[in-house]
């Protein structure tokens, strides 16, 4: 196997199909450290020019990544963003986009780039005579998860003020800011969401299960905000680094079947489809951009870090691997890309037909999904499509609501979230958010109709 030839996915080949594999990332790291040295010695030497635009760096600035100057680096990242948005028809002129903001670099950059895109559209709308194409609307959502960590309320107020400041600084184009505590999805009628959520969390004994359950609730919160306020798309700032961690975590939790659903650009399982425009960037790149451009991020210790959490173990494992080889996160995502995505990982309706460049329209015709016309059954908690064996277990169970409920549940959630004893299970189920239990009632009806 000395020759690589065309089938470059072979075992001994580290070089991936597209260019920019392992070898290229190694020099990036290297020249970054060397750059800081040369800039200290008043920018001399043979790496004086930006590798893209060939400009000499001004005094006081330094090259950042792969010999690029700050502005080339910025357009490199924005270029990735734009490419993802256009190839996947993520944003169309009639959309109302909700950007999920967590305070981290990914969502901050996502917010910034969406804003810049809106700004450009507004400018050309202003300039155009006909003004026939509308400009998409943008809103920002922040889910307050302070219930699971101990943040004193003056600190919390400061955080909210800070976020308001960030959002209001993004002009032109007014953006509504929605801040909702995560317990809101759990409130039922007059019952306070906080007590219900605390009861739920106390029923989950597994540390990883608790974290994942909060993640699912966070997504439900975002969906609620989007639905209540008429948003058509939800943008999240997940990048390759996040996705690499999810790939390994999901593998470790036995979710090999559903894994491809979570790692694509588009996730249309939800009522408000979720899109990931920063999927091809790395956390390091995004943090660097935040530093360069003074984009403010919030260091929110969202949850107490648990030594028993599989998610934390995976995260530190991948950080170690990434330090050892800066191409690792990308390679992991690339592997996951070779797995078969689901039908809902694409926009197949022709709603946006007229807004898609003609050369890309064929991509969005109703393609033959290779037999996956069967509607997938989703786990009540994590929305994972259930595999055949999980479905098999489901049909074996009886028809009572409790059993049907626990049956429409993937084996991972069943193990790490659901309490084992039937009494505590009943207790747990009674406090679940309505948006979760409603789905079950619907599927129970479907199942009984099918029989």
């Amino acid at each position: 196997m000395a020759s690589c030839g065309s089938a470059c996915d072979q075992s001994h080949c580290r070089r991936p199909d597209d260019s920019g594999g392992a070898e290229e990332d190694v020099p990036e790291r290297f020249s970054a450290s060397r750059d800081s040295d040369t800039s200290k010695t008043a920018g001399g030497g043979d790496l004086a020019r930006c590798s893209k635009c060939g400009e000499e760096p001004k005094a006081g600035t330094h090259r950042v990544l792969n010999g690029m100057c700050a502005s080339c680096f910025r357009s490199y990242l924005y270029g990735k963003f734009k490419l993802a948005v256009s190839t996947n028809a993520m944003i169309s002129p009639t959309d109302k986009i909700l950007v999920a903001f967590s305070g981290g670099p990914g969502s901050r950059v996502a917010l910034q780039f969406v804003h810049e895109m809106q700004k450009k559209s507004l400018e050309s709308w202003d300039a155009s005579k006909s003004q026939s194409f509308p400009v998409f609307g943008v809103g920002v959502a922040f889910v307050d998860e302070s219930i699971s960590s101990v943040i004193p309320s003056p600190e919390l107020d400061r955080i909210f003020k800070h976020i308001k400041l960030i959002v209001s600084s993004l002009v032109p184009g007014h953006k509504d800011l929605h801040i909702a505590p995560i317990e809101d999805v759990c409130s039922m009628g007059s019952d306070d969401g906080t007590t219900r959520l605390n009861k739920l969390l106390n029923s989950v004994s597994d540390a990883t299960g608790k974290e994942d359950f909060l993640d699912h609730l966070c997504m439900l919160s975002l969906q609620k905000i989007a639905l209540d306020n008429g948003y058509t798309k939800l943008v999240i700032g997940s990048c390759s680094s996040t996705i690499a961690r999810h790939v390994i975590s999901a593998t470790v939790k036995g979710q090999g079947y559903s894994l491809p659903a979570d790692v694509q650009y588009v996730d249309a399982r939800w009522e408000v489809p979720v899109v990931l425009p920063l999927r091809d960037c790395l956390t390091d790149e995004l943090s660097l951009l935040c530093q360069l451009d003074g984009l403010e991020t919030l260091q929110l210790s969202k949850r107490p870090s648990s030594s028993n959490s599989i998610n934390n173990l995976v995260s530190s494992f991948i950080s170690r691997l990434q330090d050892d080889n800066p191409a690792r996160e990308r390679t992991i995502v690339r592997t996951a890309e070779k797995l078969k995505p689901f039908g809902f990982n694409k926009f197949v309706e022709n709603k946006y037909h007229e807004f898609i460049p003609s050369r890309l329209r064929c991509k969005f015709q109703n393609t033959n999904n290779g037999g996956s016309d069967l509607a997938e059954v989703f786990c009540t908690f994590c929305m994972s499509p259930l595999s055949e064996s999980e479905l098999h277990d489901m049909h074996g169970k009886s028809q009572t609501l409790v059993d049907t409920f626990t049956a429409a549940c993937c084996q991972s959630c069943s193990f790490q979230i659901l309490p084992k004893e039937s009494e505590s299970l009943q207790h747990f189920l009674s406090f679940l958010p309505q948006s979760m239990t409603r789905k079950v009632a619907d599927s129970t009806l479907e199942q009984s109709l099918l029989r």
Partner: protein
Amino acid sequence: MGDSDASSRSKRAAARLCSICNQRQAALKRPKTLQQICKECFYIVFEDEIHKVIMDNNLFRRGERVAVAASGGKDSTVLAYVMSQLNRRHNYGLDLFLLSVDEGITGYRDDSLETVKRNEIEYGLPLKVVSYKDLYGWTMDEIVKAIGLKNNCTFCGVFRRQALDRGAALMKADKIVTGHNADDIAETVLLNILRGDIARLSRCTIITTGEDGPIPRCKPFKYTYEKEIVMYAYFKKLDYFSTECIYSPNAYRGFAREFIKDLERIRPRAILDIIRSGENFRIATSTKLPEQGTCERCGYISSQKLCKACMLLEGLNRGLPKLGIGRTRGNNDLKKQREHGNSVPKITDSNLQSKQCGSLDF
């Protein structure tokens, strides 16, 4: 002394009864399920689970001649022992024999081979040893002398795989069984994800491989935890050789192994979950996978013109130790390497592929 002490003592004693038979004292905590069980019940569940795997996956047919790949290490010793036990107990009707590979590593392999020779007597299974020297004209000692300690595991692994096949063919075996355990397979799934090797990822969880080839090989220990194998060997006082290969470097697999050990501590079932994930991965039809053909020189299975073993051997015989190692490098890459002065640690194929004392290619 009083009633309270006696009752607390009896409570403690009661708490330590085997959770399966409820009669005997619990002697160990089962790594897979964390149950407290006695030795006898442990033997029973351990052997029964393997029997179930063999039955559920139709690993063998009656009358088959099966080569048990034996290195003298814990996995293969327990494998030989359990296979002969189950063969007798459940009447599989298999013709078992031990097949061992002598890589020619003085101070290591000759010691472990002694263990296998003792196994031959202890288990009553005939032994056949094939050596690298006979098959390839090179011992590992000679190879290491020629190429150093960087890519030696690649050579050993590739050569051993072929050596097992050739030995099995010589002995007219119908099947090979290896002692790859759940930890091994979980590590391999992770490694293949980390390396982007989708072709291997799709194959590595299959319990019987090479069914379309001359001699299929299967892994009855696919769902057996390494810790349990060690416990079984310990309690049964089985004779095995437990030293690391003297040439094994810090293999890349070590990263994955450490991670899996940490994982097992938090959630023991995670090892089986990784294997389940591996089994459930569906490869996109658009992905290009290598085509299976045969080696021009030796006729062995290969996706290239020459199989890896022939390629490596060619390199050895021509004094080109890097032939067949890594990707083809253009001049550009060599220049980059020199610029860096190798200050950045490079992950080469050997590191990626290295596993001590085990064949890698599934």
